[in-house]
């Protein structure tokens, strides 16, 4: 399916959802839940907040979808704008309470075998740890582009910035992340290999 027909299909889906069609709402949910969850996880670094805020954002979408207008922004940009506001609001509440988000261990990955699971988990927590020290705009671009899977155009709309601006921010963010993370490590596998060699 071409990007244009994808966009057209989503437009129809959103229109049906606006009219209260349960099947369309369900399909939108299926399509956006993983992306939204990953985005919020990338922004908060915390699965508990990711769960709560993902639910909150979907409830906000239900309240507001009737007023969504295609001509203003693509649906994805509109939805992730709501998510961004929810994250900011949560952050302010935490700051007021004197609590800061921590990376936690609750990150099950059910798509990989045991060895790959360890590697992916290390890699993701490493990415999130590094991303935490990025300036907010850079972290937002990384979260929208790679966690939510938005295009540069959609990212720009969600952030209220120009595409050229987003590309510059993305470039800087990747450069910084590379410096912070260094080369991808595959420690567990190497250790097993060394052991068997000595034996």
């Amino acid at each position, binding site marked *: 399916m071409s990007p244009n027909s994808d966009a057209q299909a989503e437009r129809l889906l959103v229109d049906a959802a606006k009219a209260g069609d349960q099947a369309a709402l369900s399909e939108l949910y299926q399509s956006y839940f993983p992306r939204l*969850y990953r985005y919020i996880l990338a922004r908060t670094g915390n699965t508990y907040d990711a769960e709560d805020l993902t639910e909150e954002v979907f409830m906000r979408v239900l309240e507001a979808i009737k*007023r969504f207008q295609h001509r203003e922004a693509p649906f994805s940009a509109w939805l992730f*704008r709501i998510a961004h506001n929810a994250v900011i609001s949560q952050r302010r509440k935490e700051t007021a309470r004197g609590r800061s988000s921590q990376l936690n261990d609750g990150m099950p990955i059910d798509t990989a075998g045991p060895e790959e699971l360890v590697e992916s988990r290390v890699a993701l927590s490493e990415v999130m740890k590094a991303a935490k020290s990025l300036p907010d705009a850079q972290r937002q671009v990384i979260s929208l582009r790679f966690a939510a*899977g938005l295009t*540069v155009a959609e990212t720009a709309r969600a952030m209220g910035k120009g595409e050229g601006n987003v590309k510059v921010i993305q470039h800087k963010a*990747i450069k910084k992340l590379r410096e912070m993370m260094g080369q991808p490590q595959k420690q567990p596998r190497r250790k097993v290999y060394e052991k068997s060699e000595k034996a």
Partner: protein
Amino acid sequence: MRRVKRLNEILEECIEAGLTGRRSLAQSLALYPAQAEELGPLLRTALSISESFQSYTPPAAVQQRVRSRFLADAAARRNLRHLEGSFERRGWLAGLFRKPVLGGFAATAAVAIAVVAITVGGINVGSNEKGISVINPAEPPAEQTVVFNLGSRVDSVTEQIQGGGRVQSADLSEISALFDQLAGASSEELQESTVEFEAILSDTLYILASATGDSAGVIEDQAVIDAIDTATRGIAEAIGFDLPDPIVVGDATPEPTDPPVEPTDAPAEPTPAPTDGGNEPTVAPTPTAPPAQSTPTATADNRAPPGFLP
């Protein structure tokens, strides 16, 4: 004239090609041999970050739980609309919905009836007091769109200030105009965007504090500043949001140690410079930043998070 591509454009093109499977990393590097040395490590990092996120699957139990709540809430709303339509068609009670005092009672009664009906039908509906708004038979105005635009504008001006820039008269006028568009909205309509407004209103206070604290700035815009301030406080009251006291901000002159902002490669864009990276404020509102309340007196060199009293 042949346009020379900047590295950030090439990087994005190659990332997109990699993510959509159109080109491998090696193919991308072969396409740009002159940039390959610099491009390779960045592209590798970008694709591995994407892979890390995409290989993570959110817990199925959470997905199922949120889905149930989402669809039950949607069903409750749809039933309310049917109920409303039914009242309208019969002509009875319809008038009640248009009267402010009785409307609240009628709406509450309608919610109660719908929730009971759905619960009896075996669907577990979560509480949602904001569902009342769907009772209003008039087609709602596009406040959400105005809120979205206001949020974008306020966000961009906030970042501009945090990057060491000044508040411009045009910024204030535009924000004021967007607030004006919300002047006719009812409390209920405003409350539908509570989450958005909490961020917008706090940032607006920060912008106003920066504008009034800028000695070389937009002092002639006092009337506009006052209008925005009044609108901010009015909306805060309508949505029941306790506004933080505005900080006293010093002159928003860029700090001399700040590295220059890299110019954007899209001159036609309304926001000319990226507001990330080196231009971050000393105390940025990041999750790891200490609570704003513990910050001593805010000055130009010691900016507190938007709108919070030291």
